[in-house]
């Protein structure tokens, strides 16, 4: 058997650094004399380099999506009694006051009071500076839930009335920012046509203001609300869902559907007469 024949089966492993010292030495000695096998090694190396060069780079958007997925997973793990789509921002963004009010609302709205009671209790204790008693917690929870219900009702009513928008130029939208307290941009909702914007004082939230952006899509009126999600905890009584990997809070009131998402402390909610899945898709589109 010629030296090349003996070496051939070793060349791959040699290039991969998988040979014993003895074998490596044998191959190296052979390579000194054999231009052909040297060329084989070089070609293997060149192919390897080419393959590496074509490696994709993870986009920032993809990284953000993964972080959100892992955060949701951790959240789920820490609160196993709940369904997916719990607020992602508790730990990082939202002030403890929101945590307390949302937790209280959940405690009242959901049939699993054990874990949520504890959470609400802890949050409330830190707020109030005393240990919670279950009766005051219950009543507080009930009042928060009632407030959020009233809030949703206000948003649906505003949408239903379709009052005339007072800002109709996109360039003027940023003037709403001081009133609303969060950045107001003009998201494009698939093929929807933007008709105008106004500012809506939300009575149920002590007149905290939300921007109301009106769109029209295929003959349906769509209202997109933009607000400080720390002050308007819409998600508290809506049903959590995941749409395109984004947690969405969805509900229906009086034949209208409402869907809310949050990102970086800004809440976006749409009210439409479309069905709830369509509203959920629209509101997710507002994030992009």
């Amino acid at each position, binding site marked *: 058997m010629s030296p090349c024949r003996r070496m051939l089966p070793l060349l791959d492993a040699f290039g991969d650094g998988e040979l014993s010292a003895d074998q490596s030495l044998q191959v190296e000695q052979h390579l000194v004399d054999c231009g052909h096998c040297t060329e084989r090694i070089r070609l293997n190396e060149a192919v390897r380099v080419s393959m590496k060069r074509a490696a*994709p780079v993870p986009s920032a958007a993809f990284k953000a999506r993964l972080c959100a997925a892992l955060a949701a997973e951790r959240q789920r793990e820490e609160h196993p009694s709940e369904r997916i789509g719990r607020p992602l921002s508790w730990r990082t963004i939202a002030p403890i006051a929101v945590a307390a009010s949302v937790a209280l609302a959940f405690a009242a709205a959901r049939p699993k009071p054990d874990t949520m009671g504890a959470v609400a209790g802890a949050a409330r204790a830190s707020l109030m500076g005393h240990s919670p008693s279950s009766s005051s917690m219950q009543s507080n929870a009930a009042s928060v839930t009632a407030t959020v219900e009233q809030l949703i009702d206000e948003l649906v009513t505003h949408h239903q009335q379709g009052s005339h928008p007072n800002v109709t130029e996109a360039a003027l939208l940023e003037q709403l920012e001081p009133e609303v307290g969060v950045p107001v941009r003009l998201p494009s909702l698939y093929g929807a046509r933007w008709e105008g914007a106004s500012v809506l004082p939300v009575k149920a939230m002590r007149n905290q203001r939300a921007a109301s952006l009106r769109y029209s899509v295929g003959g349906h009126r769509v209202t997109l609300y933009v607000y400080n999600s720390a002050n308007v905890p819409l998600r508290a009584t809506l049903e959590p869902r995941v749409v395109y990997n984004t947690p969405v809070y969805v509900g229906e009131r009086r034949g209208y559907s409402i869907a809310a998402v949050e990102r970086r402390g800004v809440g976006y909610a749409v009210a439409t007469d479309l069905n709830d899945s369509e509203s959920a898709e629209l509101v997710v589109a507002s994030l992009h």
Partner: protein
Amino acid sequence: MTRRPSPPDDFEQLALEHLSSLLAVATRLTRNGAEAEDLVQDTLVKAFRAREQFTPGTNMRAWMLRILTNTFINRYRRGGLERAVLDGPDADPLADGWVSSSSMAALRDPETTALRPVLEREIGEALRELPEEFRLAVVLADVEELSYKEIADVMGCPVGTVMSRLHRGRRMLKSRLYEHALEMGIVGPEKVVGHEPASTNTVDLAQYRARRVKVG
């Protein structure tokens, strides 16, 4: 609310350090970027759930690649890898004579630099056309630089099988590259096969496919 530390702590951060590796492998396994991203996301979530099973101090990247591979096989290829083929007898491992030194030099370093991207693209396409088990072995070894032992762990097969898959996979790649270079006139036609005659026509995507059709 404070964050409850979950061992190993800061799993997310550690895991995301391997994101490029996971995406590199996922991209080669799947058909498009969206599918690759979904596969990586599935992998990360599974790894997160199973993080207590990870032994600190061992190779986390290899551990996650194993999860990725299993996820891919289970979810995207319900039938598993193409066992019928990979359990079949390997082609004569010595039938590897291949082409002349000058042709190999032209392949790895074409005289016209403009041709290099063309050849690189060709390698990318050839890789995509490799049967999965070969492609996976080649990517894990050449792109991710895992050891044979680690690849064996990831793919759930003996080291010997890894070597055979690597060898065959790389041979198919180079053969395809050579054919393409021949078409483009980067190398000339030749009958020279190594230093001594080995069985001709060593590589055989076409043969493989024909066989695969019969098997399937």
